[in-house]
């Protein structure tokens, strides 16, 4: 995916928060990344280190909290676990599964100095 753009989005959010809340150094950036979001964590880590240079989170640790994927199967009429978007329902094999969680890409919190 566009990990570089995501890293830039993270930098903006972190810099905005530092400016509005008056802190100057971030030690840990905690993200929530859904399993269905098609984000490559390794690629995001690489971009993160590059993009955060000379920001208040230069050298910060990146913590990625994964959010498991689940969806609503219309056939089974229940919530089922899925590990990729557009995977069939693990119970009935139907493709009519609407993702209900696991697509998030959020900056959750920051540990600051």
């Amino acid at each position, binding site marked *: 995916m566009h990990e570089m753009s995501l890293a830039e*989005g993270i930098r903006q959010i972190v810099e905005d928060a530092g400016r509005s809340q*008056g802190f100057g150094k971030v030690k840990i950036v905690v993200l929530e990344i859904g399993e269905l979001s098609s984000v490559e964590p390794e690629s995001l880590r690489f971009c993160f280190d590059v993009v955060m240079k000379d920001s208040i989170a230069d050298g910060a640790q990146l913590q990625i909290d994964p959010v498991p994927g689940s969806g609503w199967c219309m056939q089974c009429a229940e919530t089922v676990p899925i590990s990729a978007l*557009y995977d069939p329902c693990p119970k009935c094999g139907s493709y009519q599964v609407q993702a209900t969680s696991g697509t998030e890409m*959020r900056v959750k919190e920051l540990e*600051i100095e």
Partner: protein
Amino acid sequence: MCNVCGCGTGETRIDGEAVDHEQEHEHVLADGTVHRHSHGPAGQKWAPVAAGHAHSHGPEGEHVHEDMDGSLHYGHGPAGAHAPGMSQAQMVKIEQNILAKNDGFAERNRSWLAERGILALNLVSSPGSGKTTLLVRTIEALKRRVPVAVVEGDQQTSFDAERIRATGAPALQINTGKGCHLDAHMVGRALEKLAPSDNSVLLIENVGNLVCPAAFDLGEAAKVVVLSVTEGEDKPLKYPDMFAAASLMLVNKIDLLPYLNFPVDKAIEYALRVNPKLQVIQVSATTGAGFHEWLGWIDARLAEAVAARTR
């Protein structure tokens, strides 16, 4: 570059000019400060701080102090909750979507377009699927009865915008530099410059890329994904996000089908597996096959946009 929203990359060019930020706007920050500066407002949306939320570094049950400025400090728990000498982490809740900024600009574009009854379509595909050729033919067919304007996205060159201008339609080229997709802020700036007329059609040709443009809402009414029969029929499965985000798939270059082994039915089946609501039209941008149906689809969507016009 704008420091608050970080929006200018310094590389994006609209019709050859670096994107500037002449339009003043304001950000309301979490502490209530209003920050005024140039270019369009995303409207910072800071999620309300959820006090008492257990976070991932500290022990359960610790309590949270909320400062006047909205920052949270964890770890000042009851005596003995932490090992002596351990420095206590100071956590700040953010709870913000990474693409929230883009989504804010996209909503602004969407209401700008809705006010004017403009139907905006975001055309996405791999490079070479025939987007520009399709646009040229579509404009030729539409231009006598409805005004059409075009936003062209490419990493480099303004060749495509020149191809569009040759039809007489106004076109604005956005060069994204190393960026692999258009974003809503670029399109917002382009709208101001292009000033499309009321009750018209705005066609946006995105950068040739089936991955990144899926995640960036531009404020369009619909994404139209173009899959040409010279590509693999399994593209919808390889790039599912794009086919899931689209409302319509145009299967292009069907004039070439007699010379190829492209299983059209399989391609459509895969696309529908990813997005059961996807509409599909088979076209040829060179012969005009299928254009009756495609133009009919545009007319129906335009009628909706005009009827829903909010100004």
